[in-house]
């Protein structure tokens, strides 16, 4: 079992500053967390404007609750939970019901790769590669770091179902631990991993198309 993620030393300093009413500490937290807070709120409410209201309310809740925050989860996890709780309540009041499949996607059981990539059941080597995946390590480094390639990744993530998109952003863009993401988004260990796998599989596919087309020209 993982040790429970609690507030880090960095966060404890920030919490102490917030309690003292340090405006710059607050603004730095806003810069770090506001974009993801808006996206999480938007999953549950009807419009971007309502999501902004929810997030503003959440920030006030954070400030009013900061004296009671015990640091038993990370600060950012606690803050995202406040946002999603307010957003869910607001969404219910708006008469919206958001089934998990519309957030997580209805493709969680789909194969990771196109079944054609593997030999069929009639073959002696059934289940093995029909064509070997390309080795990307031979690509020049700047192919992977170019703004075109990053644009492809960004677009692939933007087109994911919202919960898949948020899991891959928190894990792979922000570098959160799986436990923090599970706590922040209220996901089971298995769900978090399945969402992450689907998201990475689709980004991998988008990269493959981009890099393969490039290699052939």
């Amino acid at each position, binding site marked *: 079992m993982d040790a429970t993620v609690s507030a880090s030393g960095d966060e404890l300093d920030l919490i102490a500053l917030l309690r003292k009413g340090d405006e710059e500490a607050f603004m730095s937290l806003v810069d770090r967390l506001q974009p993801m807070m808006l996206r999480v709120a938007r999953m549950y409410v009807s419009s971007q404007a309502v999501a902004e209201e929810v997030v503003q309310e959440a*920030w006030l809740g954070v400030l009013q609750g900061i004296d009671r925050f015990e640091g038993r989860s990370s600060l950012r996890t606690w803050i995202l939970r406040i946002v999603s709780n307010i957003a869910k309540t607001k969404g219910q009041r708006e008469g919206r019901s958001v089934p998990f499949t519309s957030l997580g996607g209805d493709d969680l059981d789909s194969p990771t790769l196109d*079944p054609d990539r593997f030999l069929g059941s009639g073959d002696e080597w059934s289940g*093995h590669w029909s064509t070997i995946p390309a*080795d990307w390590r031979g690509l020049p480094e700047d192919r992977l770091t170019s703004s075109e390639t990053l644009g492809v990744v960004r677009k692939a993530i933007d087109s994911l179902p919202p919960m898949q998109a948020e899991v891959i952003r928190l894990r792979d863009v922000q570098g959160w631990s799986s436990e923090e993401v599970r706590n922040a988004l209220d996901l089971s260990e298995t769900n978090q991993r399945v969402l992450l796998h689907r998201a990475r599989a689709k980004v991998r596919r988008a990269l493959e198309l981009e890099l393969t087309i490039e290699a052939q020209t």
Partner: protein
Amino acid sequence: MTMPADEDFSCRELVEVVTQYLEGAMSDADRERLERHLGGCSGCHAVLSQFRTTIEVTGRLTEDQVSGEQREALRDVFRRWREAPSASS
């Protein structure tokens, strides 16, 4: 391509558990079977490496910027709270 001697994992099955493997969420026995397969299968080796590259490239993205308008609205929220911490909104 060298086919793995151990047929426990097919390549098709292996790609489904790549994330579980990278997350360190497999049993020791499954991890050993998977690594044995990887050792003899250039295709699975390449696809695992593609997933690792995907994670690295995704890690180069940057988070959205907060609009100036939202920042100022939140600065106001903060200042009102600092003046009267217990007052609600």
